[in-house]
């Protein structure tokens, strides 16, 4: 993971930094405003001694905390406090009628909710949704990226076209497909030959697949961009060497490109899985969790529990479970996959 970020930063700013440093060192009369801290130009700031050093360190500590404080306040208020409140709310049973006091039931509510039919269904739907969207999106993105990686005139146009779904938000993509799947006038309804039948979004057999197709399409741009960036990092001389050695197109793909791409693929699997766990917008716009709860993914079930069933106690438990799954998934993927991944450095 760290290596992916490292690459994103790149060597660019370092080189530019050397230039900037030379500029700082070289030309004496650089119009540098006198720093408020420096007492005199004769005594250089970085090597104070005794109490001066202590004062200097205290000032640095204060500045450091001052700089992280705004972020820390936001995190405290909107990440850690609500998370702790989730854990706490999960211990209380929400009364059947508003106005009555909520009753402490402890971890029994966790047990009840996590073994309930509704939760198991939501978990199943979420896992299915993940299986439908993550591998498909990855393979399609890789296919497009390999095709767009050729040296052809006008290839930039194709790159732009292939990345274009990235410009559609969840709502835009969902509304487009929702309208194209309209049971009376939708173009896709007509093409699928389903005019006088329930829409694919209302059919328990197809609803989740339809939602997955929309999701894959919406994420295709991101998937393509990720894979293209990974391909760009495969050195050309490696591929040429393989070609000289007589490796065909498939052999080059299988034995050179794929191993070199494995960090990117790994990254895409982690990101894709986490994104699919968090799916909400497309469900709300396309199916509202139905039909027969076949698309009631975890996040949607939390939303449904809070706003339709007014049961924040149960919702809190599902939210904690969602967090735990995200966490476990990330950790498992990190440890299992990292060993098998070929990193560049």
């Amino acid at each position: 993971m760290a290596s992916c970020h490292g690459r994103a930063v790149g060597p660019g700013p370092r080189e530019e930094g050397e230039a900037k440093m030379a500029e700082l060192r070289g030309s004496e009369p650089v119009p540098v405003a006198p720093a408020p801290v420096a007492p005199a130009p004769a005594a250089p700031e970085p090597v104070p001694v005794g109490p001066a050093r202590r004062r200097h360190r205290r000032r640095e500590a204060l500045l450091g905390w001052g700089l992280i404080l705004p972020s820390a306040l936001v995190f405290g208020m909107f990440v850690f406090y609500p998370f702790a409140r989730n854990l706490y709310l999960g211990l209380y049973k929400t009364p059947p009628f508003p106005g009555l006091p909520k009753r402490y039931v402890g971890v029994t509510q966790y047990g009840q909710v996590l073994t309930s039919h509704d939760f198991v269904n939501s978990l199943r739907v979420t896992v299915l949704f993940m299986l439908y969207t993550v591998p498909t999106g990855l393979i399609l993105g890789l296919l497009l990226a390999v095709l767009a990686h050729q040296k052809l005139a006008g290839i930039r146009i194709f790159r732009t076209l292939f990345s274009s779904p990235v410009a559609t938000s969840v709502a835009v993509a969902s509304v487009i497909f929702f309208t194209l799947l309209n049971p009376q006038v939708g173009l896709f309804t007509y093409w699928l030959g389903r005019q006088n039948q329930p829409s694919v979004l209302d059919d328990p057999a197809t609803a989740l697949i339809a939602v997955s197709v929309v999701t894959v399409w919406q994420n295709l741009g991101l998937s393509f961009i990720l894979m293209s960036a990974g391909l760009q990092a495969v050195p050309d001389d490696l591929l040429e060497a393989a070609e000289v050695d007589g490796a065909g197109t498939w052999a080059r793909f299988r034995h050179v490109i794929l191993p070199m791409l494995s960090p990117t693929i790994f990254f895409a699997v982690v990101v894709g899985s986490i994104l699919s766990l968090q799916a909400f917008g497309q469900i709300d716009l396309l199916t509202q969790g139905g039909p027969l709860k076949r698309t009631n993914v975890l996040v949607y079930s939390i939303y449904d529990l809070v706003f339709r069933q007014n049961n924040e106690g149960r919702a809190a438990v599902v939210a904690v479970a969602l967090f735990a799954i995200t966490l476990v998934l990330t950790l498992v993927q990190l440890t299992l996959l990292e060993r098998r991944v070929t990193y560049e450095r």
Partner: protein
Amino acid sequence: MSASAPLAALAPGFRTFLWIVAALVAVAVVLQVLTRVGSPGSRHRAATAGRYLLLVTLAVVVVFPLYITVVNSLLRPAQIAARPPTLFPTQPQWSTYSKAWTQAHLDRYLMNSFIVTAVIVAGELATSIAAGYAFAFLEFPLKRTMFVVFLATMMVPLEVTFFTNLQTVVSLGWYNTYLALTVPFLASGFGAFLLRQAFLGLPRDLRDAAALDGLGHWSFMTRVAVPLARPSIAALGLFSFFAAYGQYLWPLIVTKDERLRTVQIGLKYLSSNQINDINLTFAAAVLAALPLFALLLVFQKQLVRGLTAGAVKG
């Protein structure tokens, strides 16, 4: 199972479409095979033609939903419902866009989206630069702990905390205000992490040299570190723009007033009125997608950078 509907059950139009796609792919494959025979010149030409054919076919499939959205936004509702479908607008109804802009309040929705997005991007950049700088260049007590705490925020997505956050917002009296739409996103653990990495990527003795020249931390940050980390800052800015502009769940639950609706939520309400205003829905989708398209076209390089680094945040 209707999921695996046989080809015969599909409408003739769609069958034709599938046949065309299949034929194009077949021709591309044949051309690829042909590259193994014939003279080098003709082989090369056949290979190139095959590649273009494959690229064009896939581009058509990927872009089709967007294309048909633009086409439908320019048709009258009756034309959209007509069969066989119209795939090209011969008399484009541009007035639909002015109708979407004024009557369907897209002007208001887009303005709200821009206000909210601008505040979030500016705030997130400011707090991330500050925190990233502190973690990269300063020594202070509990620095390592705080860094882990910042990273841990990435493990708690809004999808886990949205309803407890809603309660906080309500108790602060922020429900249905711009504050609720923006304040929770004014800091980002991912942003702080990304910029810390960028700052650490700068030459190590840069800070010492600057200190010798009498530059305090503030001037060093604003005049040396930030300009040098510009590519990463731009990438973070673009990434956070895409994320903030496309938000759906949070704006949906913290606003009830139509005047505060962002364009994503506006789309939800427009799409529920399907038959009479179906062209309006398509036009609204086009208008909502345009800002991100513009960014994609202008900043493609930075965007690739931002998304490849930033996708981890989700």
